[in-house]
């Protein structure tokens, strides 16, 4: 595959899941096992293709778009079908093919009520196309389509296979995101008309620095901010997240945390910042403050949770706060850290949700008090995994969670684009509070581990037969577990890939 010419690879990777979903319709619903295996094959092939694409990627030019497809799509409104991938997109794109693959493997064994693997996996494949597409779409309209596309399958996933309050959660998820995304669309349109380029092309618009006045940019940024911030989600737009996560089926939570949330931060970095640098600059302190509030607040909320899954969900608020803090720093290190935090959070929290799901499979409850400790004794391997991932999530150096958090704080102390002159003190305060957030984070994870893992099993479970980690779980989880370690030890895996792309991005912002 030549990265200069093989645009088909990207298109094929995007189409494969949809094609797989269509093909799956032909399999009779009774052939339960066949359907599940077929989904593994489809996602596996797609993943293999993306892995090959990753291998063929020209890392020397990671700042430029590769595997480009650029053809007219809707001439009436100048929309183009513009796909491409660069160093910023690649890790996220990779992740959005890895996680569905692992989810498909996981689903061969676990599928919540009411079953129906065909529908479930079909939706998952559709979701995969949507979320992968957002990371390689370089046309605002195309991006918007993919952005919206993920809502519908996720709505059904939560609504049909979710927990007891699934109705509420699914609608809430849908409406919240929809609400933001339409504001985002308004901003896209405003940018389109204001730029005068008659183009939706993200690259072109990014290079046309200084679209409109500062006031215009501020308002346009506000629109995009609403769209992306709800998706991230930033405090105070986060309340859909705990509900969605708590009620979603395991795979849904994994993909939601692992990829969907990333779309928001990716949107900030890819679209809002470079196209509206002045607006971004005016918003940066607000972003930073909201991000840090999110960090501290998310952690505080975690401390109050009694449901493991809800706790993990709230932890996402805090972790994404760090990502947003990196973005608010408006410098290369910050963007780098934000993107790293994205990937790390995807891997770690995705894994945590897998674990929470399996916990539920075994205990049929996620209430910390009901589980009552002793898991390390009852199912030791599982307990060790939970500890490992929780420790990674609380930002231990050497594991994936650290670099994003540290990097964000490091970057925020000296924000770019002149912010340090006017807001230096504010940012120092942000860093301090963010750092305090790390303590709280450690607090709630340790507390959770203490009450779930440690001690002796309560009477309720002492005699219960609980399976330790099953083979299918090992297979589905091993890549994530390894990635957590690998990203922690070799941050270069992500930092290195992104470096040139982030530099190019910041240059277009005038930084």
């Amino acid at each position, binding site marked *: 595959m030549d990265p200069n010419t093989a645009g088909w690879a990207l298109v094929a990777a995007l189409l494969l899941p949809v094609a797989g979903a269509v093909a799956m319709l032909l399999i009779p619903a009774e052939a339960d096992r066949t359907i599940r295996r077929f989904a593994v094959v489809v996602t596996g092939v797609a993943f293999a293709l993306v892995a090959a694409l990753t291998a063929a990627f020209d890392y020397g030019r990671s700042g430029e778009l590769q595997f480009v497809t650029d053809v007219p799509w809707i001439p009436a409104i100048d929309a183009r079908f513009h796909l491409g991938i660069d160093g910023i997109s690649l890790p996220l794109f990779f992740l959005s093919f890895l996680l569905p693959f692992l989810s498909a493997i996981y689903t061969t064994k676990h599928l919540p009520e009411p079953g129906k693997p065909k529908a479930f996996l079909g939706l998952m494949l559709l979701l995969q196309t949507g979320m992968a597409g957002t990371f390689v779409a370089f046309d605002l309209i195309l991006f918007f389509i993919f952005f919206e596309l993920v809502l519908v399958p996720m709505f059904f996933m939560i609504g049909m296979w979710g927990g007891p309050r699934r109705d509420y959660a699914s609608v809430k998820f849908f409406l919240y995101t929809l609400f933001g995304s339409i504001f985002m669309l308004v901003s896209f349109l405003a940018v389109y008309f204001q730029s005068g380029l008659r183009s939706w092309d993200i690259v072109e618009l990014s290079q046309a620095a200084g679209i409109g006045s500062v006031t215009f940019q501020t308002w346009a940024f506000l629109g995009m901010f609403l769209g992306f911030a709800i998706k991230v989600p930033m405090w105070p737009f986060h309340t859909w997240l705990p509900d969605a996560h708590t009620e979603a089926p395991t795979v849904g939570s994994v993909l939601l945390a692992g990829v969907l949330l990333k779309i928001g931060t990716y949107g900030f970095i890819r679209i809002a910042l470079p196209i509206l640098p002045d607006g971004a600059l005016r918003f940066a302190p607000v972003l930073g403050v909201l991000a840090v509030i999110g960090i501290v607040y998310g952690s*505080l909320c975690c401390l109050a949770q009694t449901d493991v899954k809800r706790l993990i969900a709230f932890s996402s608020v805090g972790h994404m706060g760090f990502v947003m803090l990196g973005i608010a720093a408006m410098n290369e290190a910050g963007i780098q850290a934000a993107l790293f935090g994205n990937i790390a959070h995807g891997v770690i929290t995705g894994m945590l949700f897998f674990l929470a799901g399996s916990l539920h499979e075994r205990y049929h409850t996620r209430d910390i008090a009901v589980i009552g400790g002793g898991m390390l004794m009852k199912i030791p391997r599982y307990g060790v995994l939970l500890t490992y991932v929780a420790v990674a999530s609380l930002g231990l150096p050497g594991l994936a969670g650290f670099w994003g958090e540290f990097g964000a704080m490091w970057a925020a102390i000296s924000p770019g684009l002149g912010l340090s002159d006017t807001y230096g003190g504010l940012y120092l305060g942000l860093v301090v509070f963010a750092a305090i957030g790390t303590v709280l984070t450690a607090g709630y994870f340790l507390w959770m581990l203490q009450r779930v893992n*440690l001690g002796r099993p309560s009477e309720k479970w002492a005699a219960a037969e609980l399976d330790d980690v099953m083979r299918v779980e090992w297979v589905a989880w091993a890549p994530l577990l390894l990635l957590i370690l690998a990203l922690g030890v070799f941050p270069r895996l992500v930092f290195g890939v992104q470096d040139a792309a*982030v530099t190019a991005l910041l240059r277009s912002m005038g930084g």
Partner: protein
Amino acid sequence: MESVLALAWLVPVLPLASAAVVAATGKRLPWGGAEVGILSVGAALALSAAIAWETFTNPGETLERAFAWSPLGGGFVLELGMLVDGLTAMMFLLVTLVSLMVHVYSRGYMEGEARFTYYYAMLSLFTFSMLLLVISNNTLQAVVGWELVGLCSFLLIGFYWEEKSNQDAANKAFLTTKFGDVGLIVGVIVLSAGMLGLSDTPFNFGETIDAAVSGELATGTIVLGMLLIFVGCISKSGQMPLHVWLPDAMAGPTPVSALIHAATMVTAGVFLLARLFPVLAQSALVMGVIAVVGILTLFFGGLLALVQDDIKKILAYSTISQLGYMVAAIGVGGYTASIFHLFTHGFFKALLFLGAGSLIHAVHSNDISAMGGLRRPMPVTFWTFTIGSLALAGFPMTAGFFSKDEILVSGDLWALNGFATGTYVYWVGIAAAFVTTFYMARAWFLIFTGEHRGAPHAADAHGGHGADHDAQADAHADAHHAAPNESGRWMLVPLVVLAVLSLTAGLIGSPFLQDEPNFEAWTATEVIEGTTYPFLAEYAAGAGVVAAEKGPSAKILHGPPTWHLDLLGIVLAAFAGAVLLAWRLYGKGLPDEDPTLRMGPLSRALVAKYGFDAAGYRYVVVPVRDRLSAWATRVSNDVIDGVVGGTGAAAKRLAGVTYATVDQGIIDGGVNGAAFSAAWWSARLRRIQSGDVQRYAGALVAGVVLLVLAFVAIR
């Protein structure tokens, strides 16, 4: 031929490999993984020894190797590197040696533990983490090692995680140190931010030091950065007021305590201060703060040990006190003294902890009131513990003597240059030495002399706070009153080795070795040589005293160690007084009422003759031991712990309120409120849609009229 220093990277890698191998295959090995740990740490020790020899014989030899580990954005690079100089070599030697001893010792101590293999893997990982911190050539890598150390301590302190109290202790240790890490991380960030314009590798130690010394680094950055980093050191190195985790950390297995308190975790803070010494030496404020914290800790920490009955807690508080010495020394410019004390303390404190483990192993209790008369049944433990106690008390010619002396001398020199903190270090240090001697003597008397008392509340010893819960304790639960036996060879060999070192390790920094190579030359690398105190001239001039005979002002802390007979005299007197006092009170076994009353006519005669005993007891011992330390304990346990605990509780309450009210109520309610109000409006609309067509028509006409009116009015 390349220097052996180039192989230094192997020193941390060996324990890491060991940890991995033990974790993966340990359960299938005949000794459950212990052999792997011992061999690899032994190899690391051998290599460390070679490196130590190389640097010791060639003072000033330094090797820095680094490669770009990852870009961080903005052209900045994160290095993975090693900086091998005398300081590193010294730490290598200390860490690997103590670690090896603990590895060996644990083979006997932990025999039969269910999680034996896990224990060894963690032990090796702990060692690796500390070595990673030590070898680091940049602050960020040091932070990585630092945090890993914290994690390992969490895993090991909570080793007996079946019990809630141990879980709490582990959490407390991790969270308290993590709180300090906030300071460390922000401090590192501040320092590196100051370096942004100066270097592509803003975390590099050497470059940071150069920039600081040359004045390129802004003073504000230095002050803020170093104070914040010092906050990290406060928590990690058990300084007041963040020392609270340290006594609780005794919940872990005793060998782990030895590792944590002697060689690895608690020394990290002092090490980092030493590493960044030239930077902090740029600011009198920073040094002053460090010195004050150190002084407070060394004195009040020591007092706390007076009232403890748990042998491990006594040692824990003594660790706090000794760390106070080290930190205070840094604060008065006693760089060499500080790390020299770090070095010797590592040996004798490890020895004491392992000895304590041996005792606990024998009597199945941590309580010294349950011991007594153990000298005869446990001779090796007795002698080694005695040596350790002497070293801790600073008995002349032991390791602790030379290093503590150095610290006091540093204080004296600092005082001569016009700094009050130096004076405090000198006198408070001596006072604390007295206290130290007293509580160690008290413990010594209660443990080894008199009759074996057995455990009156043996049952508590298992469930009680901080007691070990090793398998043997359970196995021998009914054998309490059997005579205690000496421990096995696995445990005794490390004791002997450490005892020898506790006696001799001080010699390399003693006045016996006034010429190079000695400890001074070994660790005081050129970077340290180049340290200047920009504020010194100012202060010295103001004080009117320039200690010219002590050498040029910028190097007052250097120069070969010399004898200080005046100090020797004071120290000896303090030692003798403390031991005597202890012997008076506890020499006859555990007093169940006021000891002075049981001393018979002699006691009365002494009281009558000098009146000092009664007064001393009444006005010094009682207030200090019973009131002041109790008060200090209360401050420690109630106020500070209370603040920490209260903060935790308050945070939880705040969390509850935040969650219930703000999140579920306001924010969520705001969103749902829109829907509710939509439904509300929807219900109002229902009335309009009445079904009566003429009302529809009326509404239509009214609408038209309204629109027309509004329309025309607006124009």
